[in-house]
């Protein structure tokens, strides 16, 4: 059970959160212009990173805000938390 620091509410137990998978996947602005492969890549393909992984979380049992986290998938260390509309901190990316 991780401790996740909600950017609004502070450190809370993982049970209050929902994981939203890989972060920074933008919905294509014109899906109809995409080939089947390109669309499938957006819908289905996700990284399975060993190490620092950028992912989205929602504080679903708290303030219900979405945010981004950089989590080490080997150690579960959370290296950074940043707002949903922000880019990952430089030292991470």
């Amino acid at each position, binding site marked *: 059970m991780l401790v996740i620091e909600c950017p*609004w*509410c*502070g450190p809370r*137990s993982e*049970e*209050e959160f929902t994981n939203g998978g890989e972060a920074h996947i933008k919905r294509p602005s014109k899906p109809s212009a995409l080939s089947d492969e390109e669309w499938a890549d957006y819908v289905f393909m996700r990284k399975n990173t060993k190490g620092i992984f950028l992912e989205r979380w929602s504080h679903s*049992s*708290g303030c*219900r*805000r979405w945010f981004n986290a950089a989590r080490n998938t080997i150690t579960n260390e959370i290296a950074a938390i940043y707002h949903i509309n922000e880019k990952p901190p430089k030292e991470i990316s």
Partner: protein
Amino acid sequence: MVETYKRKTPLANLGLEKVSPSEQKIGKSLLMTEIPYIAKVNLRGDPAKKIFLKGVKAALNIQLPKIPNTVSGKFSEVQAIWLGPDEWLLTGRSGAEAKLLKNLQKQTENMHVAITDITDSRTIMQLSGGPALSIIMKGCTLDLHPNVFKPGQCAQTILAKTNVIIHLLKFDKKIGPTLHIYVQNSFAEHLWLWLIDAAPT
């Protein structure tokens, strides 16, 4: 407002009203009470807009809390509980919801806000007495130590597998803490039974 005899609190089935106004004394030092029908309005709006804050201030006569997980105002009058960066739970006296809604709508006319009556969606359980916080710790992962969770603070969290808002009103040296738990109606009986099970006898 509808006559009280036509209404039922979510804990009505437990027959609490027969035990001096909806009170249950658990063990030696814990008092559990349901406070139903408190007016509740969910407010959403952009706090970066001064005109919005001004309008709300004019409607409620209190400032919206900007610091996460804090509460402004008075429970006995009007109170604003921080729920999110653009969301608050406003409370008022029983029956005041229509007036609250009207005032807010008037003062935020033509603004992008959402003002929603949720008076009947949650009930409030008041716990007071020494063991109140340690009982909650049995089913909640929040750190409720007095150094960390202070009067005037609130938190949305999970208690006994149920989403709740916990608001610490005061911490009296003799009586201990007094706090409110806001719970959705449908979960209220589960939570009440759980609290009684968790309370020391």
